[in-house]
């Protein structure tokens, strides 16, 4: 069992942080890599990016949005409980390089995934402007950490309850207008990454995104995570999860993410009904 040693709630309880004992993984993991977790015997294998690792303590940290049945089960795990299985580190590590001026754009829980990458980009000497967004102030996560991890932090909310009123893409455009931007890293909902990539294409700025297709094994043996990159099929778990944002077929990814929508909704509703009854 992989024990949970710390648990926090964010964004009004819709986002959960778990720090988990997994010494082998903590020792090996690099920014951008993910783990696959399974709560119990009947559980599904769920991929989540490591938001942080502590090799000395032997722990990894995951931050996830509660969206369906499996993440709802994860939410119900308390400190002292554990995950039956944690597998990793999986995927390729982010390529961290000193390029100069960089923009990191994060939306929703994507901010958690973006955090270690932003920090690494800054540590190596880049000038990092970070733009994070959420639907409203309550749903914003990791503002303090992102401030520390970057040179300049901008915050947006869709409803204007905090920071800039509007989308992250609007603020990003302003920064791009300032010129000299060498790299954009965007992690968040697929429509956000698509919108960011469309804009940076006009500005001809290289853009890296982190994709989240449905996965099973995470080691390249099922092909369920296939995505189309520049017309070629890639397996996100081993070839990614990060790809050139200008080459991704986002529309295909969005359709594939909905493959199990009906089954999952039913399963989730049933679980919540049972849970609320108890």
């Amino acid at each position, binding site marked *: 069992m992989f024990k949970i040693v710390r648990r926090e709630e964010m964004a009004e309880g819709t986002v959960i942080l778990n720090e988990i004992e997994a010494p082998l993984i903590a020792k090996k993991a690099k920014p951008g890599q993910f783990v696959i977790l399974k709560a119990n015997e009947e559980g599904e294998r769920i991929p989540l990016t490591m938001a942080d690792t502590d090799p000395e303590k032997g722990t990894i940290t995951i931050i996830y949005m509660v969206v369906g049945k499996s993440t709802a089960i994860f939410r119900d795990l308390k400190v002292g409980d554990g995950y039956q*299985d944690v597998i990793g580190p999986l995927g390729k590590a982010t390529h961290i390089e000193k390029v100069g001026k960089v923009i990191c754009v994060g939306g929703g829980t994507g901010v958690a995934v973006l955090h270690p990458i932003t920090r690494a980009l800054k540590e190596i000497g880049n000038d990092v402007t970070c733009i994070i967004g959420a639907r409203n102030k309550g749903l914003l996560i990791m503002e303090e950490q992102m401030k520390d991890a970057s040179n300049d932090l901008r915050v947006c909310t869709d409803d204007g309850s905090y920071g800039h009123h509007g989308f992250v893409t609007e603020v990003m455009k302003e920064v791009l207008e300032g010129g000299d931007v060498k790299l954009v890293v965007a992690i968040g909902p697929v429509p956000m990454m698509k919108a960011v990539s469309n804009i940076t294409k006009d500005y001809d700025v290289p853009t890296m995104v982190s994709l989240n297709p449905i996965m*099973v094994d995470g080691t390249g043996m099922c092909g369920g995570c296939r995505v189309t990159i520049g017309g070629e*099929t890639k397996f996100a778990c081993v070839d990614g999860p990060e790809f050139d944002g200008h080459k991704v077929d986002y529309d295909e990814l969005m359709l594939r993410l909905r493959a199990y929508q009906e089954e999952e909704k039913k399963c989730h509703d049933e679980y919540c009904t049972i849970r609320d009854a108890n």
Partner: protein
Amino acid sequence: MAEKAAKNTKNPRIAMPEQEPKVRARNFLEVPTGYTVKMAQEEAARCLQCKKPACVQGCPVGVDIPGFIDLLSQGDMTGAIRNLWSKNALPAVCGRVCPQESQCEGLCIVGRKGEPVAIGNLERFCADYERENGTGELPPKAEPTGKKVAVVGSGPSGLTVAGDLIVKGHDVTIFEAFHKPGGVLVYGIPEFRLPKAIVAQEVNFLERLGVKVECNAVVGKTVSIQELLDEGFDAVYIGVGAGLPRFMNIPGENLVGILSANEYLTRANLMKAYEYPKVDTPIPKGKNVTVLGAGNVAMDAARTAMRLGAEKVRVVYRRSREEMPARAAEIHHAEEEGIELFLLTNPTKYIGDENGRLTGMECLKMELGEPDASGRRRPVAIEGSEFHLETDLCIVAVGSGANPLLTAETPDIKLNRWGNIDADEANGKTTMRGVWAGGDIVTGAATVILAMGAGRAAANSMHDYLTLGW
């Protein structure tokens, strides 16, 4: 003996009792239900006890077939299973999944005039009898040698190596990427053909012997081969299988509703998705299912789809029935269960709707031309024969290759041009000192018994190395 031969060839082979096709096509319980003691002994009596048994030559690990059959017919079940175990560590598995018709049974003398002795069924009987009635006594173990061995992958080849080396006195740890050990035996071959409880028991047997099993360990990611050697393992065996799914590279392949057989079967078997929503992993349920390919994998996928409630399941294959690589028993079972074979047919394009979901596929009719490099007649498209096949779920089972995940991280291990590990055929040695390999990762997708045979050869070589030096 001539008299006995005449009698035996006349006696019909004892058929294995099976669930009714209509019933079993909708459940996941094992299809053949097994011989009774009486049936097994009657069938065993059909064996001629040949002085030069042809059957043994057909067995890749050289099981003493007349020997175990003789013990069985004398009622010495314990003797029979001990005899089997001396050559084959997984008789309950092999009795169920080996392609007997092209191995032992294919060469059996009785088969020349009539039906061959049901060697596979008898092997299975002995193993099942021991499991249900045996003492569970462990084989003797040699004194500890103080040597540590790492086995990467827990499929049939890895399990064989682990079993052989633990009784020779070495300290053995298996590293498995998935959360459950067994390899294809747990994630690929379905419950109705090989109950998972049997695989679990075989693994448990090794654990009782002292083998340590570390699941969730993706070697090449969680830990590397070099690190295993640095951390004090004296030798490493790589048995990671051929897990990379192949697709056909035809337009529309990423539509929702097209899955590799690996994904489909892993969801169904390892994740038990047929019990969804009792378990959390979903599986797409097609009404009109198409399976591409004609090997065991294709048959397993087709029969799983039927059990998950499909109205129509078709196996589409570009060659003819004769070239189908699946075990004869599986093709027969599949047809009984209502699965249609669509032979000499090759898909050229997938068709989807506005939601990106599969609705059909375009196919071409084929005819057979001259034999190709594989010795099989080459399928050639018949011009203008395009037709539309309606389908809402397509499972691609056209083969699998070597997964580069581990080998990409281990440059000292030489690969061949297909990405398989280049290992000495006789003993499994790779080009990296202290590292052996065998099974599908060396041969490409093959069979359980060949993977086990490679494991045994490697285990012997590793033992020599550990006791005598490289």
